[in-house]
């Protein structure tokens, strides 16, 4: 397949399918959207393509629960890795890294993503940037993870997502000259 990769989840209820690798717990397709299959952290990354180190993941949020895109996701067997972001009630917007299955909150974006909002997470070198509906809402640096694939994170079934896309970032652009907490 070719990047960017996309998945609209428009298929029969059940697992995400062979193009996705489960981390922690599995996601499931219900009514043409993806959601958690258990009351716990459910993560998966796209395995049908190889991603460069600088990549992005984005999707349309459905429902109001905990869900967010992930980048540099891997599952080595020793543990799951990845960077994730979310904007959910009770969480108020966070940027996380998952290393060997342990979560560390490394940033705060504030806000809650509503049904229909598009959340996007980019990683470029050690820079992580979070966008909601194309507005930059947070950025920071972390050097823990250097490679992996684009993916998603959902907690329980209240958080749903649709129309996922993952791909490589292009050539550097001018956008990085201003950032800060908002």
């Amino acid at each position, binding site marked *: 397949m070719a990047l960017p990769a996309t998945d609209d989840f428009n298929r029969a209820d059940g697992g995400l399918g062979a193009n996705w690798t489960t981390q922690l717990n599995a996601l499931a397709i219900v009514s043409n959207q993806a959601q958690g299959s258990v009351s716990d952290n459910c993560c998966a990354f796209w395995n049908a393509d190889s991603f460069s180190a600088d990549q992005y993941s984005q999707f349309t949020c459905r429902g109001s629960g*905990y869900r967010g895109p992930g980048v540099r996701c891997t599952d080595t067997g020793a543990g799951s890795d990845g960077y994730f972001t979310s904007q959910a009630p009770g969480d108020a917007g966070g940027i996380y890294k998952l290393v060997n299955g342990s979560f560390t909150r490394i940033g705060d974006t504030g806000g809650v993503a509503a049904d229909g909002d598009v959340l996007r997470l980019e990683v470029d070198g050690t820079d992580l940037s979070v966008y909601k509906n194309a507005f930059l809402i947070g950025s920071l640096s972390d050097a823990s993870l*250097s490679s992996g694939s684009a993916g998603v994170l959902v907690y329980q079934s209240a958080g749903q997502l649709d129309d996922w896309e993952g791909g490589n970032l292009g050539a550097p652009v001018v956008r990085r000259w201003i950032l800060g907490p908002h």
Partner: protein
Amino acid sequence: MFRRLTLAAVMALSLFGGAAEAQTDVAYALVPKIGDGLSPFTAFRPKYADPGSLGAGLDLVGWAGMDYGVEPVFLIRVALSAAQRTALQSQPDAMVIPSNLDNVVSALALAGIQQKLESVNLPAHWITADMTYRQVLRGFRRVITFMQRWHGLGFGRLFEAGVTLDTRLNQLTAQQRTRLSNVADDLGLDRSTVTNTMTLRQVLKLLADQLPDVTLGGDAV
């Protein structure tokens, strides 16, 4: 198309952000790490980032953090009001860096800064009284970056029982030395001048100094 929208959005945010932050100063602080890492809701995170932890109406928002790998400390960048700054500075386990990063470290403050940094195993022997806080911040952020990759490679704590900044490489286990080499190699660093009689203090600084500056919360310092 997305890039054009992003650029416009960032420009708009910068305008609004400038107004919103008129009554706040961007601050950097070292604070302890708390949490158990089991889920995003109980993730390892900076102490004082939780709502209510600094008192009513003083919650930190929009912060960006760098943890010192698996070591129990976080560097955070956050816009602070005067009241928030006072509250954070009053915490005995928080070290708030002066807001004007171009101020020079005074001779009076030097020993205290070095003691605080080294108490969380951040090498500080290289700091002198003629340096700006910006230089200090750049220096130890690189060490933090080095130890983040240590974490990402799945290694446990370096500064476990018996290991300090004074520990020499030849006093570490073979596994610990191999891990240091692995991190340096993974980051593309030259370790040819590292010797077995160097202390961890010297080795971490020597290797980390080869790393580029990183941004935090969009701030390259």
